[in-house]
């Protein structure tokens, strides 16, 4: 029996089983349709409040959550760290308590510290969604990537997926490895040794340092942004050298499955991790990922919506009784 969504929060892909993931992706299919109508709004979360708390800069994730909430008719408030009480020295716990007193139904948190959303979830009475925490997880990104992959291949199982770039600092790589691994796809991490954390094999991934080897026979090529400002110097000699060794261009596509797709969570550095012609080619699903982002986040907000869960729980209890 389908029992509805059983989670109060979305903190980590590790908490989700295959059914949960399929339920989110199936719901997202319907929300894609809503976003393509002339009136891109449904009344489902009317009267609910969504607070976007972004302690780290973000354009697409915040916009995507904001649109997702608005298209479901929720009231959406954005709080960013600069100019808020956070920059005045308020602790995360006090910020939580303050926000909770405003009675939101859903809170999205992005924070530089791994585990911050889990901390907030423990201290706040509403649903918490991890919008990216440190180098830990970015679950909605992995879900929207899964949506784009499922759209291209009709499945999430038995695929070979390579993630190329700065694995050390990438929560996207970690969440994707967890999700795709759960469905039995092979996940490869590829990057220079300086950007590959030790012990990463424990995530069940194969590690490559040679790009051509890593791309051989893959169905999905996922490129990560090289953060010029953070990496140049001790970890990467120069952007030019990185591009020469790990930048993916159209000529690399011959190594991959003929149907292979190219993905990038954005924002991309054209000419560094991805050559510009490839980014604009028909192999690229980068803009599909963005569209999927809004739909997947609508699905997550919808499934987490508080009363829904409470009601489902009471019903389950009365069914059992």
């Amino acid at each position, binding site marked *: 029996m389908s029992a*509805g969504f059983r989670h109060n929060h979305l903190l980590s892909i590790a908490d989700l089983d295959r059914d949960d993931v399929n339920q989110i992706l199936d719901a997202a299919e*319907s929300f894609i*349709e809503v976003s393509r*109508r002339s009136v891109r709004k449904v*009344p489902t979360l009317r009267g609910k409040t969504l607070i976007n708390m972004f302690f780290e800069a973000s354009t697409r994730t915040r916009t995507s959550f904001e649109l997702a909430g608005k298209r479901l008719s929720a009231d959406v408030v954005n709080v960013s760290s600069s100019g808020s009480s956070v920059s005045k020295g308020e602790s995360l716990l006090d910020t939580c308590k303050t926000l909770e007193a405003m009675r939101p139904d859903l809170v999205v948190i992005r924070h530089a510290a791994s585990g911050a959303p889990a901390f907030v979830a423990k201290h706040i009475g509403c649903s918490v969604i991890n919008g990216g925490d440190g180098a830990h997880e970015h679950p909605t990104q992995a879900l929207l990537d899964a949506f784009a992959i499922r759209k291209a291949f009709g499945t999430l199982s038995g695929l070979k997926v390579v993630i190329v770039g700065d694995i050390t600092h990438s929560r996207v790589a970690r969440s994707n490895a967890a999700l795709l691994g759960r469905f039995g796809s092979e996940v490869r991490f590829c990057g220079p040794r300086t950007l590959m954390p030790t012990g990463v094999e424990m995530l069940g991934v194969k590690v490559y340092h040679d790009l051509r080897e890593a791309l051989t026979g893959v169905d999905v090529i996922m490129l990560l942004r090289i953060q010029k400002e953070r990496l140049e110097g001790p970890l990467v000699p120069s952007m030019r050298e990185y591009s020469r060794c790990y930048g993916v261009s159209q000529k690399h596509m011959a190594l991959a499955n003929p149907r292979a797709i190219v993905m990038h969570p954005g924002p991309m550095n054209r000419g560094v991790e991805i050559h510009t012609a490839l980014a604009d080619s028909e192999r690229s699903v980068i803009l599909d990922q963005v569209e999927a982002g809004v739909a997947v986040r609508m699905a997550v907000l919808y499934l987490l919506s508080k*009363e829904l869960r409470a*009601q*489902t729980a009471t019903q389950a209890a009365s069914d059992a009784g």
Partner: protein
Amino acid sequence: MALVDAPGQIVLDADAIGRTIRRVASEIVERTRATAKLALVGIEQGGTPIARRLADEITKVEGRSVPVGSLDITLYRDDAASALPDPKVGPSRIDFVVEGADIVLVDDVLHTGRTVRAAIDCLFDYGRPRRIWLAVLCDRGGRQLPVAADFIGKRVEVPEGYALDVVAEGGAADRAFLRVWRPSEAPGGARP
């Protein structure tokens, strides 16, 4: 109006459903003769197969083809965020211009009227129809909103506590039958 109150009781069998659909189709033809932009829209899940069969019948009689769409009203339910036992949403499919169209909304069972209210709201998000009619295979009574059908296949009085389920895919297993309603279901019976 027939009163039915035994679980499993068949209200309409496959033959009766076929005949009823043909009759309702000819009534629709009669009433919509003057309209140029006629379209049928089924309410998921029960209404869509009936809308398709009505469209086929209209084509047989009139020789003109009528576009058929479907609406999933889950997101428009008045209890969407609170009482949904199975939060499964499906996409709506409207491939014609709703603006200015004459639309016949089609559902299998008319009960509280809440589904129809939601469907009308949903339809308006696609455009402003010139007018909307409502066609239902069964009207079971029990309205909670001021909603009335323009085309009714069969009127049956079903007491509260029972669900009237309809299978109308066009096969031999087609039937409309009575079932005990479980409190874990959404009010209105068949539809989640």
